[in-house]
C-alpha cells in the first residue's frame, strides 16, 4: 500500500473527527440548553451514534479476515453482533432508560439497594471493557503497521496514547455528533470500495472462492515475509525470490520451490505465479505462524464446530446488553420509548454495514490468499482496494478504507476507555475520588495496552467474542432478571455475577494465556457461554429463591418505574436525576 495515501487517510479522519466534534459543540450550544439537550438526542441521531461507537475494529477488519481464513461459518459473528441489539431492544432498552441508570453498577445498586452488588458489577464492567479494548488496540496496531511499517505493539501504544490524552483532556468526550459522523464514515469507507471491487470481480468473470481446498493465487502475487518462516509446499512451484530461501541469497531471479519444507528468511519477497496453490506455514513455525489457524473455531471445526457456533451465538445474542459503552449511550435518549426507537434504527444501520462484510471476506479469499501465509488475515479489508484496482484509484480507495478502520478503533477505544475509567474512578479506586477521573484513564487503557504487547496471537474478532461471553454470563442475567423478576435479591445477584461472570472470566483468561492449546477442554474454555450463561442464571434464580426474605422493599416501586411510561410515573423527575451529567 502506498504509505503517503494511507497516512493522509488516517490524518484526514482524525482532523475530521476533531472538526465535527467542535461543530457538534457549537450546535448543541445554539440549541436550547447545552446540558439538557444532551438528554434529548432524537432517536435517529442517537442510533447513528450508537452504531458509530459499536462498529469496532473487530467488525471493520476482523470478521472479513475470519471469513477469508475459515469461510461462511464466521458470518455468525456479525449476525450475533446485530441480533444482540434485538434482544437488548426487546428486554432491556426502555426499562434501562427509565431506570435512569448511567452505568450497569448504577442499575445494580438502584434495583437491589446493595453496595456489594454494585462493587462486583464494577469489577466485571472493567473486565469486559479491558477484554474488549484488547482487540481494538490490536486492530489499531495492525492498521498502523500496514500504513507505516511500525511494529504492531507500537501502533497500539500510539493509539492508546492519543486516546488517553484526548479522553483525559475531555476532547474526545463521547459527543453524539462525532460518533454519528463516524458511523457514516465507516459505512462509506466500505461501501464505495465495494462497488469498485465488485466491478473488478465481474470483469474477472466472477471466480467462485473455495474453502474446501487450499486457495490458489488468482494473479501473480508478491508475498513479503518480515520475519523468518518455514512453509510446506505440496507441489513444485516456480517463483521469483528476493531475499533468503533455504539459506541461499536470491536477488529477484527465478527459483523453483520443490515439494517439501522450505525456510524463508527475514525480509524476503517471493512472487508466486497465477494458478499456484498457496503454501501453508508449518504448525508452530515460530511467532509468524498465522493466528487464525490456532484459533478456537478452526481448531476443531469438524469435532467441535457446532459447539463453538452455539457458544458464539449465545455470547453475542446475550452479551451485547452488557457492553459498558453501549449502555451509556441509552442514557442520552429522552425517554424509554425513544430508547426503543433508537434501537430499531440501530438494527437497520448495523445490518446495512454487515451486508458488506462477506464481500470483503470472499474477495479476500480470492485475491489476497497470501495473508494466510503471513498471518495477517485481519488486513484483508485494508489490502483489497490496492490489490484489485491499483493505480491512483486503488491508492485513494485504500486511503478511504484505512481512514474507516481508523474511525473504527478510535471511536470504540475512546468510548470504552471513558466507560472503564469512569467505573474505575468511582467504584474500584474510590480513595482517588471522582475528581481523579483523569488519573483513572491511565490504568483504564494501560492494562489492555500491556496485555496487547504480551498476547500477540489472538485474532481480533475472537477476543471480542470472549468479552461478549463474560458479559452474557454476568450482566445478561442481572439485567433480564432485574428488570422482569421481582424476586431477585442482592445475594442472588452476587452469586450469579460471581459464578457466571467469574467462571467465564476465568475460562477466558486461561484461553488468552494459552492454558489449553487444543482438544475438547480448549473448545470448552474458548467458548464458555454455552455453560457459563446457564450457570449465571441458575445461580441468580436459586440463591434468590433461597433468600426470599431479602427481596428489596422497593421492588414494586422500581418495577413500576421501569415499565410504566414516563407520563404515568412523573418521568420528568427521573429524567432530571442527573442534571450534572453531560453525554
Amino acid at each position, binding site marked *: 500500500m502506498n504509505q503517503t495515501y494511507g497516512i493522509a487517510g488516517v490524518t484526514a479522519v482524525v482532523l475530521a473527527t476533531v472538526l465535527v466534534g*467542535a461543530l457538534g*459543540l457549537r450546535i448543541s*450550544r445554539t440549541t436550547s440548553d*447545552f446540558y439538557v439537550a444532551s438528554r434529548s438526542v432524537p432517536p435517529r441521531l442517537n442510533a447513528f451514534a450508537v452504531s458509530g461507537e459499536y462498529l469496532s475494529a473487530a467488525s471493520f477488519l476482523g470478521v472479513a479476515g475470519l471469513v477469508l481464513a475459515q469461510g*461462511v461459518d464466521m*458470518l*455468525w459473528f456479525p*449476525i450475533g453482533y*446485530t*441480533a444482540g*441489539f*434485538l*434482544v437488548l431492544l*426487546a*428486554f432491556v432498552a426502555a426499562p434501562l432508560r427509565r431506570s*435512569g*441508570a*448511567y452505568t450497569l*453498577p*448504577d442499575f445494580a*445498586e*438502584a434495583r437491589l439497594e446493595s453496595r456489594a452488588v454494585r462493587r462486583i458489577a464494577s469489577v466485571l464492567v472493567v473486565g469486559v471493557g479491558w477484554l474488549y479494548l484488547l482487540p481494538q488496540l490490536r486492530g489499531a496496531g495492525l492498521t498502523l503497521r500496514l500504513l507505516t511499517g511500525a511494529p504492531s505493539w507500537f501502533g497500539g501504544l500510539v493509539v492508546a496514547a492519543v486516546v488517553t490524552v484526548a479522553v483525559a483532556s*475531555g476532547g474526545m*468526550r463521547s459527543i453524539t455528533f462525532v460518533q454519528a459522523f463516524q458511523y457514516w464514515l465507516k459505512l462509506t469507507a466500505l461501501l464505495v470500495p465495494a462497488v469498485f471491487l465488485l466491478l473488478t470481480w465481474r470483469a474477472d468473470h466472477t471466480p*467462485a472462492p473455495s474453502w474446501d481446498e487450499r486457495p490458489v493465487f488468482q494473479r501473480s502475487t508478491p508475498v513479503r515475509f518480515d520475519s523468518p518462516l518455514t512453509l510446506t509446499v505440496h507441489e513444485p512451484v516456480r517463483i521469483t525470490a528476493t531475499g533468503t530461501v533455504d539459506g541461499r541469497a536470491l536477488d529477484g531471479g527465478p527459483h523453483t520451490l520443490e515439494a517439501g519444507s522450505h525456510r524463508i528468511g527475514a525480509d524476503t519477497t517471493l512472487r508466486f505465479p497465477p494458478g499456484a496453490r498457496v503454501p501453508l506455514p508449518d504448525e508452530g513455525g515460530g511467532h509468524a505462524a498465522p493466528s487464525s489457524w490456532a484459533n478456537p473455531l478452526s481448531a476443531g471445526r469438524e469435532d467441535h464446530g*457446532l459447539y463453538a457456533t452455539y457458544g458464539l*451465538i449465545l455470547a453475542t*445474542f446475550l452479551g451485547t446488553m452488557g457492553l459498558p459503552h453501549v449502555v451509556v449511550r441509552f442514557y442520552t435518549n429522552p425517554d424509554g420509548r425513544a430508547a*426503543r426507537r433508537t434501537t430499531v434504527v440501530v*438494527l437497520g444501520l*448495523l*445490518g*446495512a454495514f*454487515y*451486508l458488506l*462484510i*462477506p464481500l470483503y471476506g470472499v474477495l479476500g479469499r480470492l485475491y489476497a490468499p497470501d495473508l494466510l501465509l503471513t498471518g495477517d488475515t485481519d488486513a484483508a479489508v485494508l489490502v483489497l482496494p490496492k490489490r484489485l484496482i491499483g493505480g491512483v484509484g486503488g491508492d485513494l480507495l485504500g486511503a478511504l478504507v484505512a481512514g474507516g478502520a481508523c474511525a473504527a478503533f478510535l471511536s470504540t477505544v475512546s468510548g470504552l476507555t471513558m466507560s472503564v*475509567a*469512569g*467505573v474505575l474512578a*468511582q467504584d474500584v479506586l474510590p480513595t482517588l475520588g*471522582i475528581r481523579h477521573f*483523569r488519573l483513572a484513564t491511565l490504568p483504564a487503557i494501560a492494562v489492555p495496552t500491556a496485555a496487547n504487547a504480551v498476547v500477540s496471537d489472538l485474532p481480533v474478532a475472537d477476543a471480542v467474542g470472549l468479552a461478549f461471553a463474560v458479559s452474557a454470563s454476568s450482566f445478561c442475567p442481572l439485567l433480564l432478571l432485574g428488570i*422482569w423478576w421481582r424476586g431477585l435479591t442482592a445475594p442472588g445477584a452476587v452469586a450469579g455475577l460471581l459464578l457466571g461472570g467469574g467462571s467465564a472470566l476465568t475460562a477466558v483468561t486461561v484461553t488468552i494465556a494459552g492454558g489449553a492449546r487444543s482438544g475438547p477442554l480448549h473448545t470448552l474454555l474458548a467458548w464458555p457461554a454455552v455453560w457459563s450463561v446457564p450457570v449465571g442464571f441458575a445461580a441468580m434464580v436459586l440463591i434468590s429463591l433461597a433468600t426470599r426474605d431479602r427481596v428489596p*422493599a*422497593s421492588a*414494586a*416501586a422500581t*418495577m*413500576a418505574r421501569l*415499565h410504566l*411510561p414516563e*407520563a*404515568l410515573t412523573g418521568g420528568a423527575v*427521573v429524567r432530571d*436525576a*442527573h442534571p*450534572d*451529567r*453531560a453525554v
Partner: protein
Amino acid sequence: MGAESVPRREVVTGRPGTDRAGLPRPRPAVPAEEDTAVRILMHRQMRAALTATVLLAASLGLLPVTLRLLPLADTWPSVWLVLGVAPYPALLCAGAWYVRRAERNEGDVTAR
C-alpha cells in the same frame, strides 16, 4: 475542542454529594391498583418480547444444525445469502414489530 468560548465540558462520573446511589430513591409504596396495572403491563410486554426474540432465536438458532445436515452447506453462493443477507432484514422487521406492539401495550395503560 477548538472554540475557546465554549463552556468547558466536565467529565462527570457520578452525582456530587453523599448519595452515590446514582438514582432517585423510589417512592416507598405503590398503590395496589397501580401495582396490578404494572403486573398486567409487564406480562404483555414480556409476551411481545418473547414472541419477537424466541421466533427469531428459534429460526436462527436451528440454522447451524440445518446447514450441517443439508447439502446446501456446500453450494456457492446460496449459503452465503442465507447467512450473509437474510438475517438482517428479518432482525429489522422483528424489531419494528416489537416496538409497535410495545408502544400499543403502553398506550393501553396510559389510556386507562
